[in-house]
């Protein structure tokens, strides 16, 4: 996948580009809005990460211009402005997703993948990861053919982890997915459910399918 990041802050741009490349994609850095328009960045990439506050030409202007020209490339807006009004104006300009700075790199990576999948593939009713098989239609999990009973919360958590198999999923992403609320208060409301999931999945194993990545979140690591 070709990803472009239009961002004037070189430190953020470098970190994001490195993370994207290490996730196995290609990434180009465009330092400002004018260059993005001149180089047709939105036309020549699969996903574009666009900062809103750019010198010379704002990200929203770049986006509106491209959408007016019929370019449908998925765009994730990055901004330090996080009010509901700001988000609405971003979506009105044609953004597919919206991420408020500071954000977790893992979340950005997950969103890039989700947005790419949404625009390129049809939604699946079955998710597989190694011996795990999750049916979204019947809400059932089978491990090596055995059915395992999950609570709706556990099912929802595992669904997200399996969708992003091999990637770090943050607590905030999980909260938003499970309870439709981006809780980031002191109480870790996810951990207890992760522990129960582990209890159900890892009965005959020494290490766990679900790894805790300290300070970042959780990841499923199944080849």
């Amino acid at each position, binding site marked *: 996948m070709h990803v472009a990041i239009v961002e004037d802050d070189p430190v953020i741009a470098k970190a994001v580009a490195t993370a994207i490349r290490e996730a196995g994609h290609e990434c180009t850095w465009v330092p400002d809005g004018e260059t993005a328009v001149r180089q047709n960045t939105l036309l020549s990439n699969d996903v574009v990460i666009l900062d809103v506050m750019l010198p010379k030409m704002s990200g929203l202007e770049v986006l509106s211009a491209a959408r007016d020209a019929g370019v449908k490339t998925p765009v994730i807006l990055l901004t330090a402005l996080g009010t509901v009004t700001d988000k609405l104006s971003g979506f009105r300009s044609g953004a597919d997703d919206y991420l408020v700075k500071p954000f977790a790199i893992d979340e950005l990576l997950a969103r890039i993948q989700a947005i790419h999948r949404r625009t390129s593939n049809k939604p699946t009713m079955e998710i597989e990861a190694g011996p795990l098989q999750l049916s979204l239609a019947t809400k059932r999990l089978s491990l090596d053919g055995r059915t395992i009973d999950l609570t709706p919360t556990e099912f929802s958590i595992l669904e997200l982890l399996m969708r992003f198999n091999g990637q770090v999923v943050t607590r905030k992403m999980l909260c938003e997915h499970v309870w439709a609320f981006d*809780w980031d208060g002191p109480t870790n409301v996810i951990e207890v459910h992760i522990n129960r999931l582990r209890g159900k999945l890892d009965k005959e194993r020494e290490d766990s399918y679900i790894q805790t990545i300290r300070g970042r979140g959780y990841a499923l690591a199944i080849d």
Partner: protein
Amino acid sequence: MPWPSIDVPLLRRIPWGSLRVRLTLLNSAAVLLAMLILLFAVRVGVRTALFNATEQTLLGEVREVAMSLEEYYPSSGSFVASRDLLVAELRRKAESHRDRSWFLQLLENNQDGTTTVWASDNCPEEILTEPIDEAVKEKVKRAARHRWARKLIDTIGGQKLYVRIGMPDVVIEKEVDNLTWFLLPIGIGFTLLTPLAGYWLALRATQPIAGILKTAGKLKPTKLGDRLMTRGTNDELDQLSATINRLLDQVARHVERQQQFVADAAHELRGPLAAMQNSLEVATSKNRSLDSYQGTIEEALGETRHLTKLANDLLLLAEVGNSLGSVFNEECDLGEVARQTAAMFGGTAEERSIEFTIHTSGEATVRGDERQLRQVISNLVDNALRFTPDGGRIALAVESNQAAHEAIVTVTDSGRGVEPEHLDRVFDRFFQANAARDRSDIKRGGGLGLSICRSIVERHGGRISIDSPGVGLGATVAVIVPLRLVRRKPL
């Protein structure tokens, strides 16, 4: 044609916009108008009264003349002789009332017409020949700016004898004019005096305002110590001063709180920044093991997360504060929000053997932002969880009080409780009772959770309060938000 512009330097120097000048002008105009009306009314009243009195006098006079004829007639024995006596009396009367221009006439009426027996020399021609209406025996008439009384005094052998006594209006008019000339200087005196008195009154009335202006002019956002003087009269101006003083108290308190908030925020920002700076400085000061670097980086990452949470909370506070007074279009069922919140925290509570109950009764739908209200209930439950020991109890309840038109959300825990002296401060920004310095301590939140709750609740037109029976005895936080308005069906 354009109006010629009048430019009088003195007029330009008068501050027409000032309250004092306007009060003076209004006052003068009102007094002048009242005076003119009064003078006019007095003049008309006096004139009417004088004319009426005069007419009564004239009528009295003719009656008197008639009576004296009756007196003369028997004593003189003949009509002609008594008539002469009568003429003599009329002559005397004319003479004594000459200065008031009285005129008198004695006349006879028979089938041949009217003939004047005798008339005073000042009797006007048109009245001398005025025909007599025989049907009326006595009457008062006015014509040709004169008025007179006429009476039939005797009838002898088909001869009718009449007397007329009258006077010109001009005599009365002159007296009214005299009165006018007497009142006019008084009026002019008032006219001159009124603006001066008005100006003096306006000066007295506006003097406290000048004081208010002077004090208020000296106030600055950095110097809000001064207060307006009140004179203890409790009049409107005193009330104004008191109101402004109360406003100043509030502003001063607000500014003080704001300054405290900025200081606290800076302090909270400095902590993680210092931690990051120092650990990174030390890490890069010499070559270290990979593990050591990794440890430092993870610590730094932890600090950035703390800073992010802080920035998000501060922005949320600002956002909620800025939208104060805005109207909500959406409705939100607090019972549903409570159930969602309970679902989110239920697992954690269970893990820690905390008995977490939720109770909802009645319809508690309010107008508001669902995300923000969910933030409130989540923050409260999170708080309760952090301060309640394993095995404790937390009760979340949503009720509606239809009579008071309010939804009530309460979160009761069996946790640490709050010291009585801290009860009114727990909603202050960055207030932490016995706060642990360790930022990774789970008990230490961002310090903004409860003030965010208060801001959001107040934005929804509600109020929040905390009650605790004492340290170690738990606490109850109550949130009260007005219910949505339901349009009643017409009966």
